[in-house]
């Protein structure tokens, strides 16, 4: 068991997964993300034969569905289809960006039909159907139109009401750059799937709503990190 964990951790380090390393302990005790698989990591990652172009050694197919994306007359940015431009940290040209990986579970449809991609004696059954909680079923029906937009650049030049990039990342949020994408907002901008459901480890969490938020949001301070 220990051996497997080390292997996965080592693989993730190669893929820039130091944050995951840092939160290994949190994930180990995590009864949500950490309990998806038979091991804390195994719900999402596999040491071998990762799907989706081996992105992060992912254990689940993300499917090929396109999503209804967020639009708004006041949106300064262009919210492109969620399958592109993708997170350049992963393999360009594949539907394997940060957000899509999250959708492999947090999309009700995909989770139901695509849940079991790796059922071995070593790992057990992965991907039980998600809770019916609407807040967890973010991409239900292939619809991301009623959620905060993702796969779009955080561009304070375009939208002058946004905070500077340095202020956003300095506050602990993450923006994604790679390929043709620069400073993209993805699920991982606000959420860190490894740090435990109750929020940021070193931030007072007593008032937080949890949800793996990178910054506690008990006074909407996560929102106002970007939205000045």
């Amino acid at each position: 068991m220990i051996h497997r964990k080390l292997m996965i951790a080592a693989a993730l380090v190669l893929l820039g997964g130091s944050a995951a390393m840092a939160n290994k302990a949190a994930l180990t005790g995590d009864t949500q993300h950490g309990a998806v698989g038979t091991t804390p990591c195994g719900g999402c990652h596999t040491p071998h034969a990762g799907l989706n172009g081996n992105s992060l050694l992912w254990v689940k197919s993300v499917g090929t569905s396109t999503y209804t994306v967020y639009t708004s007359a006041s949106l300064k940015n262009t919210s492109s289809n969620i399958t592109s431009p993708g997170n350049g940290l992963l393999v360009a040209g594949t539907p394997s960006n940060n957000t899509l990986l999250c959708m492999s579970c947090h999309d009700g449809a995909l989770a139901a039909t695509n849940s079991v991609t790796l059922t071995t004696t070593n790992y057990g059954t992965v991907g039980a159907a998600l809770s019916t909680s609407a807040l967890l079923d973010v991409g239900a029906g292939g619809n991301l139109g009623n959620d905060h937009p993702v796969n779009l650049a955080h561009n304070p030049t375009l939208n002058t009401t946004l905070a500077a990039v340095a202020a956003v990342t300095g506050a602990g949020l993450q923006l994604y750059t790679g390929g043709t994408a620069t400073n993209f907002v993805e699920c991982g901008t606000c959420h860190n799937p490894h740090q435990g459901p109750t929020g940021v480890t070193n931030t007072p969490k007593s008032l937080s709503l949890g949800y793996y938020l990178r910054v506690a949001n008990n006074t909407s301070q996560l929102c106002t990190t970007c939205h000045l």
Partner: protein
Amino acid sequence: MRAERTQSLGIRPAAGLLLLLLPLLLGLPRAAQGQSAPVVGTKHDLSVPGTVSGQPCVFCHTPHDSYVAEKPDWNHLLSIQTYTLYTSTTTKTVMQQPNQSSKQCLSCHDGTVALGQTKAQGLLNTSRILGAGKNLGANLSNDHPISFTPVSDGQLAASLFLTPPATKDPAVKLVAGAVECTTCHNPHIPNKDTVVPSFLVRSNASSAICLACHDPSQPRPNRLQGWTTGSHGTATNTTPAAAGFGAYGTVALNACLNCHLPHNTPANSSPRLLRQYEEAACSPCHNGTNLTPALLNVMGEFSKVYAHPTTTVSGLHEANENAFPLNANRHAECPDCHNGHAAANAGGAALPPGVQSALLGATGVSNAGGAVNPQPANNEYEVCFKCHADSTGKPQSSAYSVYGYTPFRVTFATSTDPYNVRLQMQSTASSHPVTHARNSPYPQSSLRVNMLTLSYTAGRAMGTQVYCTDCHTNNQDRNFGGLGPNGPHGSAYPHILERNYQVNTPPATPGGTFPSLTYSAGINGPFALCEKCHEFTNSIFQDATFRHNIHSIGVGASCAICHSPHGVANSSANIGPRLVNFDTHFVGQNSGRPIQFNKAGRYCDLVCHQQAHDSGMTY
């Protein structure tokens, strides 16, 4: 609940301060600090710190599971209310139920949805309730319209009709080409206007927000033209910090808000969102009180015995009554003569016939009849003609005489409208030079060099044309030395005349005797009004060829018995020159012959004061 709110109020300032200071403590650049923590701590921050309702943003927005079609990520439960919409006889825009954007505001501000009732999180506790006056209710007819695409009506900014449409001020934005709540309001920042912290998109001092769409620079017949020089847009008189006045401190800064309100206007003054109805809208400032320095008391003028029926007639004025003349719905409200957008106390014409400053921008009827095109009126008489010319509704009953003695002229027998002042003024026979320059072919030996002031000093140079208001105005008009408001609001004298103009009591039958007037010179004399321009003692009364003094002093007969002061309409060959047109209450026929003033033959043919006049009595 009460305890919770009290507690939350205790916590909030500390939390807000911390949020404000946090960027400073972290040493972030100023741009990152920005307007730190929008909404937080404002009246739109409904959060209850220390509870699951502690997030200020969540009452309106949610990162997940928002309304699908309501942007941005709308969360507050929307109202299903059907609203009563704004209507007006002057707007060309077709109103419709609120659009998405404004419905979001109304999800709290129509008062039908519990504050804190969200789509994603259910009912959250709130630290605030809807403030007084902030509940617009289901009736939006007394609020500035929203959710409409502007339609050009002559006074809206041209930029609204370009592609893409925009207001004149980049801070005042259309939403998908429409005016929405957020055109004027920014729900995140309460105090861009530091005087009125109502989440305005910018300071509305001098009504800058209003003027972003309502554009005085549009060409005639734009009713707003003249705003930038008009008194309501420029006067520095201070206004009281009291209900009923704008909050900005002076007339110029209050601007549109002197008279209009954007929300919750009283029920009976909703069209055009006036604060009050008809003269009541003008009264708070024009009643001699409230402003510093105070204005003259115009409202008091209407209490005089002879006054325009401004305060006595209500409910008939309608701002779209441009199809002049006014017929059945006769009335004289303030805006019938004054355009509050353009009226000023300087800058109008100094000499007849041009409109004086107070009448700038008012509509009128031309001397050819029909509406001035394009409006507004160029000449003062055009304003008067709206009611006193071709209108078929002019009262002709005995009740009319409450405003003064009703003359009846000989030529009126062939006139269809004896009260049509326009026809009289446009007479080809003779008329006072109101609609035209002086054009009599005869010598005008009686005319003074200067008109007489009320104290009988030299006033305005005579010139070649006169105003209606040279005769019909306040008996204390400042143009001729008085101390009261200018203009014919009211007067101590009949017909709203500026000075004494006495008429004899008619005889029992035409041609009979009647009581004499006693002539005296000066402002209290019976013919003082005529004396303002016509010199009696050295010319008319001593005229060697026609002895006025026999009639005026000897018989004590009023000028009005022989002269029709406006003009002689429908004149016959033998009636008309020199404004001669006999009052048939006094003058009767001689032996059944037509009443005549035969100027060529230098005689009159009539009976008056039991004296027969005929061709044998020449002058």
